[in-house]
């Protein structure tokens, strides 16, 4: 016989130090992250807002980049937006198709698959400036120059830094992000759905196209969002592949060079003849870069949630 307890009091009699300590530690870590974010954001907003005006964001600077009264950042906003969009157009299909191959077709245990996976992971670890040099060496000096030769161009249309090469370089850089996110999304699709489709006599291609990919779409878009966030603020990969210090007009072709917000922040903070005078527009540019990244993310997130809602409600 087990003696019945005298009381029904389940409260702990002793203080659990380890539990208290761990809760505190994890809380502190979270707080630290939040604090850093808040400090950066407040700093940028407080110093950036005064310099921000409609004139500033809608003006193409005519001669002096550093004069707060006349300069503007319209070409930089346009350049950054276009290069992110063009990058997305390239990176999503290539990344998704690679991930589909890796999860749906490649035999999991084969050495080739393992090598491809290792290559994808290593690609994610390559410093971004190396991607810039790769873009210069491969896209501009190899692909671009040969394209000019093939097309018998008398001038260098393709064999020079431009929007398209900068976007492609960024696409290569963000490829691992999209591949890994898509692979995770594909793996999360229940195997039973694939079996059901195949057992109905669907081909593997139809099964992937009609059943697997639609299910994985929100996850794939998450990969796209991560790629956009990563690429929007990157400067190193575009340094040798397309960004210009100054251009008097907006880019009109993919073979044009472009101005870029991130690079402009670098220019304002290192090339200014009078740091104190340019500080307000430097802060304002940083604020616009943050807002633009934020906006691009919001667009992607809206597309994703719209898709999720469609999938849930169905027709």
């Amino acid at each position, binding site marked *: 016989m087990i003696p019945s307890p005298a009381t029904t009091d389940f409260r702990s009699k002793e203080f659990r130090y380890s539990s208290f300590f761990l809760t505190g530690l994890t809380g502190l870590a979270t707080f630290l992250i939040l604090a850093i974010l808040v400090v950066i954001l407040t700093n940028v907003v407080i110093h950036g807002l005064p310099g921000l005006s409609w004139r500033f964001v809608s003006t193409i600077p005519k001669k002096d980049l550093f004069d707060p009264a006349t300069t503007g950042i319209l070409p930089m906003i346009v350049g950054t937006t276009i290069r992110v969009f063009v990058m997305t157009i390239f990176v999503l299909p290539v990344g998704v198709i690679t991930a589909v191959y890796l999860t749906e077709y490649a035999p999991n245990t084969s050495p080739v698959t393992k090598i491809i996976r290792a290559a994808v992971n290593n690609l994610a670890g390559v410093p971004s400036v190396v991607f810039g040099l790769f873009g210069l060496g491969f896209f501009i000096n190899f692909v671009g120059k040969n394209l000019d030769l093939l097309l018998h161009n008398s001038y260098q249309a393709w064999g020079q830094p431009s929007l398209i090469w900068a976007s492609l370089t960024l696409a290569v850089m963000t490829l691992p992000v999209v591949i890994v996110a898509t692979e995770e999304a594909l793996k999360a699709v*229940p195997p*039973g*759905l694939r079996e059901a489709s195949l057992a*109905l*006599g669907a081909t593997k291609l139809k099964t992937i196209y009609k059943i697997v990919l639609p*299910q994985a779409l929100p996850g794939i878009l998450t990969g796209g969002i991560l790629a956009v966030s990563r690429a929007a603020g990157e400067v190193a990969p575009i340094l040798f592949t397309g960004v210009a210090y100054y251009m008097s007009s907006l880019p009109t072709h993919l073979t044009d060079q472009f101005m870029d917000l991130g690079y402009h922040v670098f220019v304002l903070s290192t090339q200014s003849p009078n740091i104190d005078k340019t500080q307000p527009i430097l802060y304002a540019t940083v604020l616009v870069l943050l807002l633009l990244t934020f906006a691009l993310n919001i667009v992607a997130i809206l597309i994703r949630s719209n898709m999720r809602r469609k999938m849930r*409600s*169905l*027709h």
Partner: protein
Amino acid sequence: MPEISLPKIVPVDMKSGGDAGGRSLITIDRLALYYGATKALKDISLNLGERVVTAFIGPSGCGKSTLLRCLNRMNDLIDNVRIEGAVKIGGHDIYSSDVDVIELRKRVGMVFQKSNPFPKSIFENVAYGLRLHGVKGKTDMEGAVEESLRGAALWDEVKDRLHASALGLSGGQQQRLCIARAIAIKPEIILMDEPASALDPIATARVEELILELKKDYTIVIVTHNMQQAARISDYTAFFYIGELVEFDATAKIFTNPACKQTEDYVTGRFG
């Protein structure tokens, strides 16, 4: 899709000593299956009759599901699987090189243990297979979907919400939707892999009634862990143990007077 197709499935007359209803539709001939080096099925020979329900029973890991998945070549999807021997349906070896697996799976439908409706509407779940096999036009499609849902005894429950998500159905309704989806493309054989194991007793009873109804038009092979279920719905029962066919006979005989001691121990619940 290449237009290679199986000849129309015609049952062949059983050789002498046949047990399965006189006319045999599926002939499994010394079938062995290996997962890598492991022999999961050991030289199984079996004749399954047309328009009867054959149950595969046996303890977990005995190979009954593996054998079932040999009949529509679902095992092709697994790496490292090797098969010896032959599976003939209507006299034609389904593992011969000229067989189009797509066509085979159209003729040999399957219902899985875990109900797996597509995350689409009820209508689209049934229409998916129909569309794959060339049904076009709104009227034709709607007619075919209704017929299939009626065939799976689901029509009355879902006719007012055909375009609602299939995932909103109860477990039993989902499984009947999977059956509707399978019969929509008019297979000749339906394979069922423990179709009621995840259902409550009432939903199970409905699925069992449905199987008895479907037997009039289809040849059904069902894997089950539920002895009472096998006894209730099947005409023939095959008992497997560790990759071997122990006994195959009329269900009544298997459950009342089995030839093997092992079978008797299993069906009476003494092991397994």
